[in-house]
């Protein structure tokens, strides 16, 4: 479908630097099959993002997205593993069906990006450090010289604001 179009810069990074991206993801997941899946997932998402958002540093961006997705997958697996192992009675028979791969659309990306731009710059900075920087709330608080409570509030605010942008569209 999109075959005839030239690759975006970020997509090209995935082609050229695939092995390095794979290795950085593998370091997080320690499982080749999973790592391959995450790299592919990252590629699909980056393709949508590259077509929708202005990405000024494609290489840094490609690596960061892949790393973030790997960390998310790692945490998610810990949750799912516990789901099958910890036979809590309430947990039985409840299928927790969030797909590991979350499909994203361009319109959603556009709306969320717009919503994020409307946030106060400190809130946005706190969220970026937390979300993309991989810092904990406490670490973000230290970096910004504010309380952890405030960081917690700013992260909630950022996500809630993006959510409203999608709901109200």
């Amino acid at each position, binding site marked *: 479908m999109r075959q005839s179009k030239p690759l975006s810069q970020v997509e090209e990074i995935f082609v050229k630097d695939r092995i390095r991206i794979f290795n950085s993801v593998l370091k997080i997941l320690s499982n080749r099959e999973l790592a391959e899946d995450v790299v592919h997932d990252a590629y699909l*998402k*980056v393709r*949508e*993002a590259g077509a929708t*958002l*202005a*990405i*000024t*540093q494609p290489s840094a*961006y490609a690596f960061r*997205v892949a790393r*973030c*997705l790997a960390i*998310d997958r790692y*945490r998610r697996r*810990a*949750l799912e593993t*516990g*789901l099958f192992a*910890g036979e*809590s009675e*309430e*947990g039985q028979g*409840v299928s*927790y*069906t*969030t797909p590991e791969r*979350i499909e*994203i659309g361009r319109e*959603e*990306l556009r709306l*969320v*990006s717009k919503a*994020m*731009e409307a946030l106060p*710059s400190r809130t*946005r*900075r706190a*969220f*970026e450090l*937390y*979300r*993309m920087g991989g810092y*904990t*709330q406490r670490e973000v608080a230290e970096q910004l010289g504010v309380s952890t409570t405030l960081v*917690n509030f700013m*992260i*909630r605010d*950022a*996500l*809630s*604001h*993006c*959510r*409203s942008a*999608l*709901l*109200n569209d």
Partner: protein
Amino acid sequence: MNNENGNDAEWQAALDWLMRMHDGELDDAGHRELHAWLAASPTHRDAFREAERLWTLTGLLPPKDK
């Protein structure tokens, strides 16, 4: 279903879980608690799914140029 500011209790609880998960705070007991919370109501599961979706979407945004 939700108020405009996204301040409903389930959404906020889902954010709590999401952030605890991201902070790497969830040990086995924490995971069991989260499972129990998810199992307790489909609205909890919906809220958590939505939070994860927003989390994924925001993870794709390029950082603002400093």
